[in-house]
């Protein structure tokens, strides 16, 4: 039996993004400091009047707000899994084998504990082949994905008490005529199990686990 974990790259990327977001937020506040501080000082000392001091302050605020909002958005996205983690633990995902061949069947087990009482709207598990293509147009780099879902398993809504565990297990099969895992610099074919748990009044839990499909046929 093998324990699956989400790709390390995703977590590292979120960590780097969180640091970048904090620096961005600090940077977006710098113009305000350079403009607001002297204005406040001149207003309190009587050297300037409100009618002449407020317009440049307003301009600076209007200029800084979009940058500040972008920083907030980046920070929220980067810490999103931590927010979800306030309600549920990181799941324990176990498979019978994490390297299989086309046509092979493998078992999949998912266990996740609710830290607080919650309503689970739905839970779904999908086995899919993801095509990822990376291309450049000028100086911009684009990444597109296309998922081919080959198997799906849904759980109905139910309530969970604090400390109660969501548990599901089943058998999955890679289609006999399927393609193996392929990873190149700009084109990738990866087999993933996508787990989604909808929590009422809270961000959904969503995680991907990779299964390596070998270039061998049964």
């Amino acid at each position: 039996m093998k324990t699956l974990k989400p790709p390390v790259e995703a977590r590292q990327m979120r960590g780097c993004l969180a640091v970048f977001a904090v620096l961005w937020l600090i940077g977006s506040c710098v113009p305000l400091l350079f403009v607001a501080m002297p204005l406040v000082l001149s207003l309190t000392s009587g050297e300037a009047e409100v009618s002449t001091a407020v317009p440049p302050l307003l301009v600076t605020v209007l200029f800084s707000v979009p940058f500040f909002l972008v920083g907030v958005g980046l920070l929220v996205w980067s810490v999103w899994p931590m927010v979800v983690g306030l309600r549920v633990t990181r799941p324990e995902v176990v498979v019978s084998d994490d390297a299989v061949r086309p046509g092979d069947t493998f078992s999949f087990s998912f266990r996740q504990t609710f830290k607080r009482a919650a309503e689970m709207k739905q839970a779904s598990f999908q086995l899919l082949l993801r095509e990822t293509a990376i291309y450049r147009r000028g100086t911009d780099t684009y990444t597109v994905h296309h998922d081919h879902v080959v198997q799906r398993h849904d759980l109905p809504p139910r309530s969970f008490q604090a400390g109660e565990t969501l548990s599901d297990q089943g058998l999955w099969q890679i289609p006999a005529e399927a393609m193996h895992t392929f990873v190149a610099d700009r084109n990738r074919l990866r087999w993933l199990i996508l787990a989604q748990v909808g929590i009422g009044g809270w961000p959904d839990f969503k995680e991907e686990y990779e299964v390596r499909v070998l270039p061998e046929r049964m």
Partner: protein
Amino acid sequence: MAKADFLITLQGGDLDGNWPHFAPGSTLAGSVQIVTDSDLRANHVWVRLQWHTEGRGDRDQGRAGELDVFQGVLTAQTPYTYGFHFALPREPWSYAGHYINIIWEVVVEIDVPMAPDLRQSQLFILAPGSLVRAPAAA
């Protein structure tokens, strides 16, 4: 500018649509015949076994084998025939998907000094069965 006619023939393999099909790990044998319209000096005549991707993403490619079959002067209107064989690797398989296609080919290239190289390719399918396509939706 010199021109050349290439005839690449792959031996064996089952026909899958328009392309010959070979199993991973098997041997790919064949021959290439080259006829030039004028005397042509060639630094090398390469026969290469390679794959590349096509589709939405930028191109990835890989080379599984290379043979240097000739160096010298190709006399005009004289057929030159060279045999080749390669051990086919186990991956990647040929694939036709939504954004990505993986294509295998034998490429014959004449390395012409101080001029554009002349090349021709013959596509084939490398897969344990027929051409692998994207799976049907659940």
